[in-house]
């Protein structure tokens, strides 16, 4: 059972990294740097399917390996991304203890992701004025969160038969 769990974890981490790279290469960001955050779908699935610790592992791997593959490890974008992932993971951990639904969890984690990224930008570039972007990022995050949440809910329904019993 442990091996199966590891295989699932590796597959989910690979999917998160692949989605992260795919989004950077083919979709990119919209106005004000708003992104869909396709890899968040995998974070949600991992948390609901395997557990919180596994979700944290997938998120950490996606930031480190995703940036490493793009040649941006320890570049400003790495720290900005890490800020977003740390805050969104924290929200996921908290919401996992409540009976929140997948879509709601996704929206709040997406909001936390944007807030975390913005916080790092403000601290990194000493630009407190960037805080005015928060309402626009919030609006984008709510939309992106609903999209990723619904996708994750659909995927979770389909992979339910694969759920581990142990």
């Amino acid at each position, binding site marked *: 059972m442990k091996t199966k769990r590891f295989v699932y974890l590796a597959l989910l981490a690979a999917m998160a990294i692949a989605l992260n790279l795919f989004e950077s290469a083919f979709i990119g960001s919209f106005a004000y740097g708003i992104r869909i955050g396709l890899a968040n779908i995998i974070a949600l699935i991992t948390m609901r399917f395997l557990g919180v610790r596994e979700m944290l592992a997938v998120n950490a791997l996606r930031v480190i390996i995703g940036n490493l593959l793009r040649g941006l490890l320890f570049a400003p974008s790495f720290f900005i991304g890490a800020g977003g992932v740390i805050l969104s993971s924290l929200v996921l951990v908290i919401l996992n203890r409540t009976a929140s639904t997948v879509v709601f969890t996704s929206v709040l984690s997406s909001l936390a992701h944007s807030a975390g990224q913005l916080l790092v930008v403000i601290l990194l570039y000493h630009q407190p004025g960037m805080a005015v972007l928060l309402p626009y990022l919030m*609006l984008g995050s709510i939309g992106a969160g609903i999209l990723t949440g619904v996708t994750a809910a659909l995927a979770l329904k389909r992979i339910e038969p694969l759920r581990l019993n142990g």
Partner: protein
Amino acid sequence: MTQPWIRKREIVLIAVLAAAALTAAIFFALPKQHSGVTVRIEQAGKLVQTFDPAVDAVYHIEGSCGGLDVEVKNGQWHVINEQCPNHICAEMGWRTAEDVIPVTCMPNEIVIYVGERE
């Protein structure tokens, strides 16, 4: 797993957050009528023009060497079409209300500086 995708109270909470963000976004997007900052332009020690950096405009200022134009855009201003030998005033680039060093054109005896703040 019988959990619904989303509950009614969660929709309400998301709607409240979205409404708050939308209100703030509209507030920030509204053009500001005045910035509370007045920029002063002096020529040969005399005040010849004042402007609000929130209002986009181009002001022509006569000077001892042929004068210059001050272009105001998006809360910033810079010197263009300057009639002077060194062009130092134009090279100072875009200035904002936070800049403490005034734009100076010595040949034209023109100084552009932030005057009053509300």
